[in-house]
């Protein structure tokens, strides 16, 4: 395996992006990530992005967003209709092949022009479920109900996850929901949105974007004093049909974590892309975390969830803490699909 590292990141997330296109959002982020390691687009061997045209209702918006990259002279480029973390996986594979030494990965989401909870209904099967238009929070609530009824988690535990997220998020300028003094009692007093899920159980919707520069081998060490080496990365998928899965489990998350080598050593922190507190409880169990690991020091996706970028932002948050020297080993997670259907795990190390 070729050593590949995250050498630069740039993120921006706000509750609602107005008067700014995705292109205008990404221009400074892409420029900032490249400039942080002294690269221009001509120095980038491969560019890969993740986004969905359904969010803003703009056909081929992902092609438009290439305007932010500077694709003249022509570049080697690809796109996935998935979270940017999966675009990062594609770039990592490209770097493994060995033909290029650097890659730019970016993703973005501007879901505010539409209704995200309805848009997400369209990721369900098109014959039996999507025509019923179940809102995303209702689908997640079915999973949360099963989790609570199975005894694998309690309402207090879920509220505790929400509180921890909001407290950690107070130090994150990109968080869109944070609090220094919210309590478990406060969360439990909230009226449910989709019973048993309360507002604080659901990730705070956001608009935003993230750009990451990857580099391989000596190039990474040349560009960055302390690269965040990707020591394991894997993604796995569970069945699409919700009815055939045990929704209290996420075997694909456990397998991805195992294949990425998550359990090989102590983890200083994990950044989890959990769209609900109940899903975070499932992920903590599937990945096999104990109390010595800090969960979501940024607040995680609960504190601000830009669809299509929340996973890449988790990798960026984990990588920043390694390059910044405050962590030696971290795990970043990304999910896609309903109820944790697809899961990607990336293990990053500073040495």
């Amino acid at each position, binding site marked *: 395996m070729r050593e590949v590292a995250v050498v630069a990141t740039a993120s921006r997330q706000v509750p609602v992006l107005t008067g700014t*296109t995705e*292109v205008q959002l990404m221009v400074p982020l892409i420029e900032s990530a490249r400039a942080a390691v002294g690269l221009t687009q001509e120095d980038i061997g491969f560019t890969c992005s993740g986004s969905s045209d359904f969010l803003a*209702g703009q056909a081929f918006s992902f092609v438009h967003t290439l305007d*932010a990259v500077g694709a003249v002279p022509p570049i080697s480029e690809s796109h996935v209709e998935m979270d940017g973390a999966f675009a990062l996986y594609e770039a990592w594979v490209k770097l493994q092949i060995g033909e290029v030494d650097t890659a730019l990965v970016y993703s973005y989401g501007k879901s505010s*022009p539409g*209704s995200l909870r309805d848009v997400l209904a369209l990721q369900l099967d098109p014959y039996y479920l999507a025509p019923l238009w179940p809102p995303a929070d209702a689908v997640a609530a079915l999973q949360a109900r099963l989790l609570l009824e199975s005894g694998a988690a309690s309402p207090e535990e879920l509220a505790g996850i929400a509180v921890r997220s909001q407290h950690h998020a107070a130090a994150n300028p990109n968080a869109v929901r944070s609090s220094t003094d919210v309590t478990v009692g406060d969360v439990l007093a909230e009226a449910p949105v989709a019973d048993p899920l309360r507002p604080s159980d659901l990730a705070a919707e956001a608009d935003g974007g993230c750009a990451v520069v990857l580099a391989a081998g000596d190039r990474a060490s040349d560009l960055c004093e302390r690269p965040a080496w990707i020591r394991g990365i894997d993604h796995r998928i569970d069945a699409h049909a919700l009815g055939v899965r045990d929704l209290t489990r996420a075997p694909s998350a456990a397998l991805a974590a195992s294949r990425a080598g998550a359990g090989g050593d102590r983890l200083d922190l994990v950044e989890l892309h959990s769209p609900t507190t109940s899903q975070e409880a499932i992920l903590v169990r599937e990945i096999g975390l104990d109390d010595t690991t800090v969960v979501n020091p940024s607040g995680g996706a609960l504190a601000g969830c830009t669809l299509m970028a929340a996973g890449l932002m988790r990798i960026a948050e984990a990588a920043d803490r390694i390059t910044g020297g405050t962590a030696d080993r971290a795990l970043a997670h990304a999910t896609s699909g309903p109820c944790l259907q697809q899961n990607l795990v990336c293990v990053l190390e500073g040495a």
Partner: protein
Amino acid sequence: MSAEPDGGAGEVRLPPSLEGVERVQSVRTPIRLEYDYRPSAAAESYLRAYEDRRIIGHRSPVDGAVFIPPRGVDPRHGTATTDEVELPDTGHVGNFCVTHLPIPGRKDLELPYVSAWIHLDGAAVGFLGLVRGCATDEVRIGMRVRAVWKPDDELGATAENILHWEPTGEPDVPVEWAGNRAFLRGQAGLEDGADDEATDA
């Protein structure tokens, strides 16, 4: 579902309650999503300017190229643009095609009609417009045109304010300098008849 043998996977047997029932031939699942779209500041400015019969572009800080419609970015370099430029409503045909098929919902379009890539004077790129006011077989690359606007009391914040483009009768832009080459010509600082190498600049 089929009750007939499917040639390999075994026979599918319907429960008695479904025997004799008309087969499902198709399923209709209407999908509708609503969006409250707000154009960018650059697009808003562009559309507002149309109310006053003005056409706005953005100038690139890299090399001065003027893009229309403005999108707040120079797409070649990924560089933000904010410098607004007012463009004249005159230019030339950079390219065109003659269409003989109607567009659904556009009964006002007489067939055949000419869609053209209009390169405004001072713009680095063209944008789409209709050419009328001459026979379709007179339209040519390099032909000088001007905008024909809607009457003042019908103007709105929309590019539809320009009904079409009509010939000015001025001498043509030479074909070798028409279209995007008009910008390259300016970049190279060359006059008419300059050598062809400049087109590769």
